[in-house]
């Protein structure tokens, strides 16, 4: 739709480009420009390698769980530091995830059980691909669900609507909407100032439509990032992010959210979950899985704490390509399985509850006699968050071939 305001805005912007805009116009422009600088944000975290969901959220009410995992089961809630942290009498958090319990108690963290991709593949490569494209079983999809999740908007778009923390743009964020991969906010610039000015002027004035458009957006984004960089960042409310990649990425994302630069979707990932051998150490709070969960829980906890009231605008969702075998293997580990667990937390989440139909762990209840069965499609969860958090109701676009996801009521509709 054409409107006079848009026309004014774009011609005024052109003036900003050549540096002739009076300050009052610039202020008015940017004020009028963003209808609400506070955006709703969806943050997606991918746990690569297939996390063992049954040892993340422990079905401690299931006798079979303890029978199938004689050496790697997490003890029932026992008041001691090595038992599961009870959630609802049936399920409990791994003891290394204690940082998530306060969010659950505040009613802002939801657990979704027996969830995942319906595709039967047990290949990390294929399953990650399917979960990121949002089209299980279909390899030729060229873009990712999180890119398609961006609502259609008219007018000027923020150059940093969609970001990924990492060197390369992940599959989930690839697509027709501009998305930026940022390793480090400080690196997002042209290395020397005189050349930067030269390039900016070239691209601003270029008659090449494609390069002129992206060039302008790029230099706008660079300026945004530089202005954010000028202030040192101190996480609020005493939040302490772990030093790992996940914690540091979430800190940068929190910083962007608080800067109101128009961020709407963010993606980051964390690897190492492929625990075939020695998944659990001498104690449940030791070993590979416990170490990973400590970093994971504390990173998410710090993010929640740091955002404070701003959590009202934010939803975080976690996922992993598939679950692991219900039974432990011969090396105190687990092999590639099927359904898994997801977390969703944020201001709009109706948390403090475990969602999803529990299929049980008896032999006849397992998938292919070995893995947790699937009762919720991951697109049911993501579809609801995209619809209710981002306001994008076009499921034909976001999840082609799965147009009517079954919402679980994770958010107020």
């Amino acid at each position, binding site marked *: *739709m*054409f409107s006079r305001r848009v026309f004014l805005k774009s011609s005024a912007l052109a003036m900003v480009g050549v540096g002739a805009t009076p300050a009052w116009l610039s202020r008015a422009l940017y004020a009028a420009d963003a209808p609400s600088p506070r955006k709703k944000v969806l943050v997606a975290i991918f746990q690569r390698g297939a996390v063992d969901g049954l040892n993340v959220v422990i079905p401690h009410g299931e006798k079979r769980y303890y029978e199938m995992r004689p050496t790697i089961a997490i003890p029932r809630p026992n008041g001691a530091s090595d038992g599961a942290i009870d959630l609802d009498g049936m399920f409990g958090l791994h003891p290394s995830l204690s940082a998530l319990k306060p969010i659950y108690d505040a009613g802002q963290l939801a657990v979704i059980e027996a969830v995942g991709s319906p595709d*039967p593949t*047990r290949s990390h*490569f*294929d399953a990650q*691909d399917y979960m990121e494209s949002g089209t299980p079983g279909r*390899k*030729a*999809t*060229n873009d990712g669900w999180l890119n398609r999740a961006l609502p259609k908007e008219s007018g000027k778009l923020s*150059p940093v609507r969609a970001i990924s923390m990492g*060197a*390369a*743009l992940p*599959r989930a964020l690839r697509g*027709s909407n*501009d*998305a*930026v*991969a*940022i390793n480090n906010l400080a690196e*997002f*610039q*042209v*290395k*020397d100032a*005189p*050349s*930067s*000015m*030269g*390039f900016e*002027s*070239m*691209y*601003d*004035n*270029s*008659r*090449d439509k*494609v*390069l*002129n458009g*992206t*060039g302008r*957006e*790029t230099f706008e*984004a*660079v300026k945004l990032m530089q202005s954010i960089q000028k202030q040192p960042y101190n996480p609020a409310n005493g939040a302490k992010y772990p030093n790992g990649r996940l914690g540091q990425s979430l800190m940068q994302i929190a910083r962007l959210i608080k800067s109101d630069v128009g961020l709407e979707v963010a993606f980051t990932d964390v690897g190492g979950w492929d625990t075939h051998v020695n998944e659990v150490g001498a104690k449940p709070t030791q070993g590979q899985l416990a170490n990973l969960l400590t970093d994971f829980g504390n990173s998410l906890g710090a993010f929640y704490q740091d955002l404070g009231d701003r959590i009202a605008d934010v939803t975080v969702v976690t996922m992993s390509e598939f679950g692991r075998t219900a039974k432990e293997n011969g090396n105190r580990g687990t092999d590639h399985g099927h359904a898994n667990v997801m977390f969703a937390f944020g201001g709009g989440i109706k948390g403090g509850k475990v969602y999803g139909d529990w299929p049980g762990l008896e032999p006849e209840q397992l998938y*292919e*006699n*070995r893995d947790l069965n699937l009762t919720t499609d991951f697109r049911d969860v993501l579809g609801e968050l995209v619809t209710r958090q981002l306001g994008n109701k076009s499921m034909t676009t976001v999840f082609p071939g799965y147009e009517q996801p079954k919402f679980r009521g994770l958010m107020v509709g």
Partner: protein
Amino acid sequence: MRKSLVLVLAILCAAVPAWTTKKKAEVDAKRFQEKLTKDEQVLHALDRLTFGPRPGDVEIVKRMGVKKWIDLQLHPEKITEDRALEVKLAPLETLRMTQGDTEASYPTPQMIRQVAQGRQPLPDDPVARAAVERQVRRIKVKKDEKDADPMEPAVPLDKLLSQAQIRTLRNGKPEEKKEVLASIPQEQIDDVVIAMPPQMRNQLMPIAPESLRRKFMLSNTPQQVIAYDLSEGKLYRAILSNRQLQEQMVDFWYNHFNVFLDKGNDRFMVPSYEREAIRPHVFGHFRELLEATATAPAMLFYLDNWQSVAPDFSRRQGRGGAGGRPARGLNENYGRELLELHTLGVDGGYTQKDVTEVARCFTGWTIKDPRGGSTFFYNDRVHDKGEKIVLGVTIPAGGGRDDGEKVLDILARHPSTAQFISKELTQRFVADNPPQALIDRMAKTFLDTDGDIRAVMNTMLTSKEFLSQGAYQAKVKTPFEMIVSSIRATDAQVDYAFPLADRIAKLGQPLYRKLEPTGYSNANAEWINSASLLARMNFALDLTQNKVQGTKVDQARFHEDPAHTARLMLFTNPTAPTRDAIDKAIADQKAKNPKAPPSPALVAGLVIGSPDFQRR
């Protein structure tokens, strides 16, 4: 009255975009009929058939005539290859090795574990052997801390080199380091490499001669050598080969029949895949290319066909499902991509039923020993013997391997395939939205010549649309093209190409690592986003200021006169905004520091990062 005014406005608003689109299409169509000047023709042909002109190329094409030069590029066997290229390729041995040899010499972490457990022998090559042994020791060390072995090499470094030499290798100037390395007797090289600490090897990597650099890499991360060889090989060929169109075609067809290097054992299969399934057929008949890719272990593994068995196979065997091992069955991945991406195209007129039927025809096309030598193998035991109907053609029951061959015959001669391949070629070589009339003529050639790729290319490259204003500068360079063309334009000397591959990945196109079977897009949109545009500008500055490892630009060749320098690299005049921005940058620099005039290298960097240079 008021109502009708609103109505009129609504109609106007609705009509404007439709009208402009139509108008734009007409303008575009007209542009493909407008001729280029003689000079434009020369530059255009070079821009499209090569990875960018080098100094002197324009003169060569002018002398020969554009038509004759294009024809020569279509017949690479008539072109003498550059001796410098052979020298560069010589050390990249995995490009010539069989899969089995590669697997034995360049172990993955899994293999190292198997050696540690005594389930596999050590490789024969001394450096590979030492690498495996060292890693095997690491595993043992991790297993049992008490048994800690300090990983001492057979001969310590200070027994092989003097203290002074070791100091120089640590802290010396590049030239001094080179001298020390050159002074090591040939028979001691392996021992020295093994004795060096990994950090020292990493530091020496950029200045070491190619053969030594390989030994360093082998000692540090043996499993990376194949990716290294592939990237270096591809870069050197694009930079140096005289058979430029052939290299463009290898790139095009590999991308069309894409395989992702990092999917499991594909790592070992990709060198022979490119060498045997793609390269020999790039100007051949499409049916042969299709056969070569359909039977390539790399493709069978990548699209899972090696695991696909008749839908009732598990029942025939009396197992699967409820009892222990998961049921095996039909896998449609290859069947689907064969139709959608390799031949007919997504709108090529096939149904889901056709996908399933095609997949059934290819059951039993598998790999012998996928973890070992990996060769194609037809396994009749798992083949679906029932009748199939593919695109309306009945393939009778009781067939064998021939079922798949029949499918390839149908697909390779299908009009949709002729259209789809022709369209992809025009998108790559002419423009993102190529004129349909040209595609139709190419498709006709395709069908008339039984899919002779050289003939189809000839139809395209001799067409008026190819040498038209509509095609001129219409393509945005891919990251690979951008970086290679900058090396060629500046006549940079590359002694170590791998860091360039790293840069190409940063620009968004990791070589051999396109995960999806679609390959990279032939159109512009995929390449231009904020992060990649910044990476292009930063690369331009690093290249011209000699900050790219292993690559050296002779800054003396940049001219004092900025316009001259711009022409040196663009092979034509810069556009007005680019020229103005360069002039302003120089003026600013002069104003800031009158005593030190801006260096021509600054100008060169601005030119290579400019919008002008991103086009071809």
